[in-house]
C-alpha cells in the first residue's frame, strides 16, 4: 500500500527491495544492507576497543568496557552471579545488534539513498529479522536446559501439576511469538508515527516523537536481552 499526499514524505509498508537468489529464493535486500552496516559498526567498535589494551583504560577501550559492564549487569541480574558467564556473549550480541539496528534506523538519514523499490530502515521493522532473533532465543534456552539437566529438563512441563501440561507446552510457542511481535511492533510503530507526522507537519513537530522513538527503541533492545536472559535462567534454575 502506498500513500503519498505532499511528496515530502511517504508511508510505505510491505514494499521490499527483492534480491532473487534463485527462482524460489528471494531475500529482502534493504534489510540485509542495513544489518550488514550494523554488523560492520559493532565489529569495528569492538576492534577499536581491543586494539591497544592497557591497565588503565582510555578512549575506546574505556567506552567498550563501560558497554560490557552494562551488559554484564543485565545478565547478572537475571542469571545470578554464578551462571551468567557462559551466556554473556549471546546476550551481549543480542543487545548490541538490536540496539544498533534500532538506532541505525532512527538516527541515520537513510532517505537520502533511494532504492528501486522499498526504502532503507531499521532491520528490526521487518518481521523476519525479529522472528529469527526470537527463535534463536528459543533454541538457546532449550540448549541451556538440556545441557544443564539432560532429559530431566522436560520434568518442568509437569510442574506444578501435570494438569498444566498443555499450558506449559503452549508457553514455548508464545515466548518467541511475544518476543518477536513486541520488537517488531514497537519499531514499526515508531517509524510509522514519525513518517505520518512528517507527512502532516514536516517541521519541528515530529522532533519530540523522534526523541521518544530513540528512547523507546533503546528500551526495546534492553527488554529483548533481559527477557532472553530471563528465559535462559528459567530453563537452568
Amino acid at each position, binding site marked *: *500500500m502506498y500513500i503519498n499526499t505532499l511528496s515530502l514524505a511517504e508511508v510505505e*509498508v*510491505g514494499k521490499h527491495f527483492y534480491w532473487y537468489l534463485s527462482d524460489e529464493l528471494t531475500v529482502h535486500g534493504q534489510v540485509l544492507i542495513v544489518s550488514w552496516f550494523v554488523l560492520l559498526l559493532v565489529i569495528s567498535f569492538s576492534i577499536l576497543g581491543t586494539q591497544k589494551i592497557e591497565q588503565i583504560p582510555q578512549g575506546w577501550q574505556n567506552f567498550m568496557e563501560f558497554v560490557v559492564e552494562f551488559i554484564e549487569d543485565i545478565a547478572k541480574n537475571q542469571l545470578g552471579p554464578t551462571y551468567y558467564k557462559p551466556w554473556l556473549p549471546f546476550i551481549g550480541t543480542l543487545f548490541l545488534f538490536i540496539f544498533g539496528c534500532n538506532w541505525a534506523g532512527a538516527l541515520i538519514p537513510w532517505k537520502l539513498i533511494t532504492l528501486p523499490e522499498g526504502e532503507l530502515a531499521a532491520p528490526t521493522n521487518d518481521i523476519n529479522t525479529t522472528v529469527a532473533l526470537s527463535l534463536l532465543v528459543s533454541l538457546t534456552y532449550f540448549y541451556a536446559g538440556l545441557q544443564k539437566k539432560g532429559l530431566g529438563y522436560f520434568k518442568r512441563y509437569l510442574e506444578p501439576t501435570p494438569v498444566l501440561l498443555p499450558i506449559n507446552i503452549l508457553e514455548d510457542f508464545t515466548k518467541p511469538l*511475544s518476543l518477536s*511481535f*513486541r520488537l*517488531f*511492533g*514497537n519499531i*514499526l*510503530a515508531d517509524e*510509522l508515527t514519525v513518517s505520518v507526522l512528517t507527512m502532516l507537519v514536516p517541521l519541528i513537530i515530529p522532533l519530540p516523537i523522534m526523541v521518544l522513538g530513540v528512547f523507546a527503541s533503546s*528500551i*526495546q533492545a*534492553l*527488554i529483548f536481552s*533481559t527477557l532472553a536472559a530471563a528465559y535462559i535462567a528459567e530453563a537452568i534454575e
Partner: protein
Amino acid sequence: MDAIISASSVIAAGLSVGLAAIGPGIGQGTAAGQAVEGIARQPEAENKIRGTLLLSLAFMEALTIYGLVVALSLLFANPFS
C-alpha cells in the same frame, strides 16, 4: 478490494488499537502511581524503582502493540482482499 471488506477492515483496525489500549492504560497508570508512592516513601530507592518501572511499562505497552500489529496487518496485508 471489495468496499465492504475495506470498510470493515478500517473499522476493525481502529477498534483493535483502541480497545487494546484500554487495559494497558489502566495498568500503566496503576504501576506509575505505585512507583511514585514508593519513591515518596523511600527516595533512596529511586533508581531501582525507576528501572523496574520502565521494564514493566514496556511489558504492558507490548499488549497494545499486539493490537497494533493486528491493525497493521488488516490495513497493509489484508488476507481477504
